[in-house]
């Protein structure tokens, strides 16, 4: 999946899931205020599309085995297994996955972009890529899309968009993502973390501390009864 910011002239794009132009009325009011300030308001985009990380925080965190890696390389929540413990929510470095709110079916369970697993199984492309009128969202083989993205970046830079770049973090512990972006400016402006990390990298130091505390507590208790009785 490849999302291109520059194609969204006027930024009117709204995908069926994930990609959305921010249309909160409160934001509109702040837009008026900001337009007069030093940093005038500018629509870009905020994408909640799942990045389907190679090393996925949500999948690692899931205690029920509800979140799995599918044969198409995507990360999928199995609705019938998830018990809504909420641990994936704080384990996603992109802030994508959340609990399904009340009026929806299977409320309380985790939900996120499925990469249209059902459509892909039938040989169809994900719905967002299918409906996108400006072809800002493109679906295909990752290698092809990366080549296409690099080419577009070069094209844009030659046309004067010197701040065009691909957002495709591969050098961090998430080891690459399946939905990457062509953006103007810095990733931070799009709410994208420049160096996303899978939280399992923190386990070793945290467990070491836990074991040390466990041993210290046992020793303290034995000392207490041995010498203070």
């Amino acid at each position, binding site marked *: 999946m490849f999302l291109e910011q520059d194609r969204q*002239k*006027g930024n009117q794009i709204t995908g069926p899931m994930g990609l959305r132009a921010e249309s909160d009325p409160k934001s509109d009011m702040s837009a008026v205020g900001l337009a007069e300030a030093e*940093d*005038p308001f*500018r*629509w*870009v985009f905020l994408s909640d599309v799942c990045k389907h990380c190679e090393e996925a925080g949500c999948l*690692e*965190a*899931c*205690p*029920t*085995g509800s979140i799995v890696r599918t044969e198409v390389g995507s990360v999928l929540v199995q609705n019938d297994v*998830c*018990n*809504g*413990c*909420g*641990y994936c*929510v*704080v*384990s996603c470095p*992109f*802030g994508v*996955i*959340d609990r399904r709110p009340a009026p929806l079916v299977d*409320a*309380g369970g*985790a939900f996120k972009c499925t990469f249209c697993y059902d459509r892909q199984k039938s040989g169809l492309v994900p719905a967002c890529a299918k409906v996108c009128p400006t072809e800002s969202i493109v679906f295909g083989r990752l290698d092809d899309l990366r080549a296409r993205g690099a080419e577009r970046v070069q094209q844009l830079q030659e*046309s004067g968009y010197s701040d065009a770049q691909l957002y495709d973090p591969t050098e961090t512990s998430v080891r690459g993502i399946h939905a990457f972006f062509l953006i*103007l*400016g*810095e990733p*931070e*402006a799009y*709410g*994208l*973390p*420049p*160096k996303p990390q899978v*939280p399992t990298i*923190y386990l070793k*130091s*945290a*467990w070491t*501390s*836990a074991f040390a*505390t*466990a041993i*210290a*507590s*046992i020793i*303290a*208790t034995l*000392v*207490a*009864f*041995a010498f*203070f*009785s």
Partner: protein
Amino acid sequence: MTTNSPSEKRLEELREQAWKEGVVPGKGVDVAGGPIPRKPGYYGQPVVKPPVWTWQVPLYFFMGGIAGMSAVIASGAIIFHHVDLARAAMWLAAIAGAILSPILLIMDLGRPQLFLNMLRVFKHRSAMSMGAWILSAFGACAVPGLIALELHAHQILPGTLDQLLRLAAGVFIFGSAIFGTLLATYTGVLIGATAIPAWFLHRTLLPIHFGTAGLGSAAAVLELLGYRIPALNFLGFYAAGVESALLIWLSVDKHGVADRAIHEHGSGWLIRIGEVLNGPLALILRFFGLVPFAAISFLIGALVSRVGWIAVGKVSGSDPESVFAAERY
């Protein structure tokens, strides 16, 4: 923007060219309104999602800490022949760990009816999965340990069987002590190994804090139940001393914007109040021999700081600047 501005004219040109030639290779227009925002985060929208956990979770951290460390105290009491204290500690471990803790955890699930799915897989890389297994193993040791200990204490069974019962009580109580230390500390790993900046930056401190607060709380509850013995007083000093050291650690080991949720806002106050109550204040009260007050101060502090750490997660997770700042560490 007026209808004959340069950008509007350029758009007209683009349309004409596109209509004639099908494709426009040249530059378009800059979108109205100014440059790409330079402030981090999409207009203040959170980058990671804050925890969805509600009040049951900090209360569970508190209960789990008391339960787990009560079993450790019970083991120490058994070894050094304080049978009455061991019985009280095992009752505490079983009630807090095998009844209240699971209830709180199940209440917090989005779909509580599926709670048994927690034991569907065993994943050592998921602290939540490990926690579910640790809590189950703890309950599976603490309950039979308590039953065996009570039967033995009341001398219900005859000679040989009673000896077996004594052995079983010992094995189960030591087992619950081992799983108990993990039950009291894994919660620090649970929130330390996440994408929430103020949590993962303190992943080493959190298990020490939760485990030691659990030990001090267990001793405090037993003291309030009437077991005013020097051993528990020593554990009270130990826990309050470690918590005081952690208070200093927390105020020295600052990460600026990245963990400001610990030092600012209401969440920062909860942490501070909690740490003062179970650290220096409990220590001073105990030093002056005011044991019940020290115990109460420690218990309140332990609970408040657990609530504080969850509040910190909510504030920190909603703060895009913290997420970007934490990438530097």
